[in-house]
């Protein structure tokens, strides 16, 4: 019987910290055990960093909330050891359809090419995501999860933070080298620091319903503008596991949220979409107003903000939880390097630079979608409706229809950690891009490229007919800023091995294509799998410089 993650009650356990006279010191304290806090903590713990997670509640998410988890997030979850349960339980999808009145106007495929392990998206209720992350967290000795620990006081010093946590027993103090605030849109940490997340509220309301029913809709994201069953407004439909369907109804600004949540208001809307005979039950109903906003800076000395505490978006592109998990991916390795003395504290400034940039991209895209779905002025509505009408018969107009530009990871092309190209390259694997995936074979077994890179700096050498400068490559692993070497051999060249070096066969030639690689090409990937440098030939000195640059060690 599947665990009911929504009603799981997690135990408050008194920590030994609470009985000591002086506050206990921890390297990292994470506030908030939602998807972003748990991802950050798991990543740190996997990296050998001891982390304490404080959550003021003792339950996981109630309601499906974030449901669309993107390919890049799944790849991060794979690295955190939780990807497979997510994909096994989740509903995979790639195709979206947009309808205007009675017609299909636009169909898009978010992963039109084969040769990737993970789909463009899975739909999975947030309580499952948190449940699987929580179960993974419980297996990690370095991770201490403290439920019913509410942060009520915060003092910042130049080299540490001190917190006061309220518990069912009395309050206690603890200190940390770093505090990672993953405590959501209404972040208490942010409030305690007297800071704000600023942006734009959209004058509209959406009814969000989780409806349990048996239905024939295909596993596609369906969005309607002005459908017969909800005139002059929009509707969004997503399939979730357990025969639960997410249906969002646009209500308009003048709708009364409390009235609209009542069954007598919700049921007719659902019956209009599904027909009166369809049997269904409600799992969860909520009314939302959307905001796009962010903090000016995500890093404030020893306090770092990640996820909704730092930035919020309207949900049409699924850029909220996904970008938050990418924040965690970006931050954890940097914290590890700083705490281990392998990088200066200033490396953490790059988290702010990179993730503020990504937040701006997500906000831009989410805002544009919301402006199309909820036009801000009369003339904007005229253009929106003109676009929809033209889309019926004009291919160009279909591209303009914006019911959501779905989350793709930001390419950190302007990051100070990148080494700019000095050689010519084509394709998408520019410095700052997250690594693509491709099918590979290792000792004859089928596998995927991404499982061989990341977690640490990785140097990927594309070999000509199996020949590789093995000694020099193996030597990269030495030292405090070592790089794990991986050699990619051409299709059919199995049976090649080098001591101390992972060898992967580019089984369908897709790696070489996607990386625009020729024999001798070398890519340096960061611990978060983002490209940070690449060359047409391998020179260990260049690699060492690039690693120094990517770790803030100039």
């Amino acid at each position, binding site marked *: 019987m599947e665990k009911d993650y929504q009603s799981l009650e997690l135990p408050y356990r008194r920590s030994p910290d609470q009985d000591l006279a002086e506050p206990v010191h921890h390297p990292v304290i994470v506030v908030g055990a939602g998807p972003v806090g748990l991802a950050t903590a798991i990543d740190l713990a996997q990296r050998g960093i001891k982390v304490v997670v404080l959550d003021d509640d003792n339950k996981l998410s109630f309601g499906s909330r974030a449901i669309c988890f993107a390919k890049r997030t799944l790849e991060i979850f794979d690295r955190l050891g939780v990807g497979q349960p997510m994909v096994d339980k989740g509903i995979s999808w790639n195709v979206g359809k947009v309808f205007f009145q009675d017609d299909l106007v636009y169909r898009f495929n978010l992963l039109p090419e084969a040769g990737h392990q993970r789909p463009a998206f899975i739909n999975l209720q947030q309580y499952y995501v948190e449940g699987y992350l929580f179960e993974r967290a419980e297996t990690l000795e370095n991770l201490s999860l403290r439920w019913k620990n509410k942060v009520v006081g915060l003092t910042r010093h130049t080299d540490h933070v001190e917190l006061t946590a309220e518990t069912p027993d009395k309050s206690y103090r603890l200190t940390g080298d770093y505090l990672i605030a993953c405590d959501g849109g209404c972040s208490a940490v942010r409030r305690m620091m007297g800071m704000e997340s600023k942006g734009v509220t959209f004058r509209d309301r959406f009814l969000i319903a989780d409806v349990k029913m048996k239905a024939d809709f295909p596993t596609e994201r369906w969005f309607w503008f002005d459908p017969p069953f909800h005139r002059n407004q929009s509707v969004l439909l997503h399939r979730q596991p357990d025969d639960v369907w997410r249906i969002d109804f646009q209500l308009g600004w003048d709708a009364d949220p409390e009235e609209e949540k009542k069954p007598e208001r919700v049921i007719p809307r659902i019956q209009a979409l599904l027909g009166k005979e369809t049997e269904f039950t409600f799992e969860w109903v909520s009314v939302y107003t959307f905001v796009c906003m962010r903090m000016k800076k995500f890093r404030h000395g020893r306090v770092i903000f990640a996820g909704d505490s730092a930035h919020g978006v309207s949900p049409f592109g699924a850029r909220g939880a996904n970008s938050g998990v990418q924040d965690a991916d970006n931050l954890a390795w940097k914290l590890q390097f700083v705490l281990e003395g392998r990088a200066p504290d200033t490396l953490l400034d790059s988290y702010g630079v990179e993730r503020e940039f990504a937040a701006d991209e997500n906000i831009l895209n989410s805002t544009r979608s919301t402006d199309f779905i909820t036009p801000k002025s009369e*003339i904007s509505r*005229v*253009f929106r*409706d*003109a*676009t929809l*009408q*033209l889309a019926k018969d*004009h291919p*160009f*107009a279909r591209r*303009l229809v914006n019911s959501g530009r779905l989350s793709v990871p930001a390419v950190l092309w302007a990051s100070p950690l990148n080494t700019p190209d000095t050689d010519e390259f084509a394709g998408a694997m520019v410095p700052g891009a997250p690594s693509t995936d491709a099918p590979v074979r290792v000792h004859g077994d089928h596998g995927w490229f991404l499982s061989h890179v990341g977690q640490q700096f990785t140097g990927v050498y594309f070999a000509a007919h199996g020949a590789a400068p093995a000694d020099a490559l193996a030597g990269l692993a030495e030292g405090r800023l070592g790089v794990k070497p991986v050699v990619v051999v051409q299709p059919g060249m199995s049976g090649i091995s080098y001591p101390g070096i992972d060898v992967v066969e580019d089984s369908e030639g897709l790696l070489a294509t996607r990386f625009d690689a020729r024999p001798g090409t070398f890519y340096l990937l960061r611990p978060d799998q983002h490209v940070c440098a690449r060359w047409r030939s391998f020179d260990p000195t260049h690699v060492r410089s690039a690693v120094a640059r990517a770790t803030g060690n100039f």
Partner: protein
Amino acid sequence: MPLNIEPAIAKADDFYEALIDTHRGLTLEQSQMVNAKLILLLANHIGDLDVLRDALKRVRDGL
């Protein structure tokens, strides 16, 4: 490439009459929709974002 504001319409008077004629008998609301669609169609035909931005700036500056 900047927006061309030099004469380029082959038969200017013919075009002008056709434009006005397109709106014959329409309410202002219908005309707004016609204008919006025309802008989108022609913008697509032009394609170049710099030219389009140039035109947009020019008309906004005039206010």
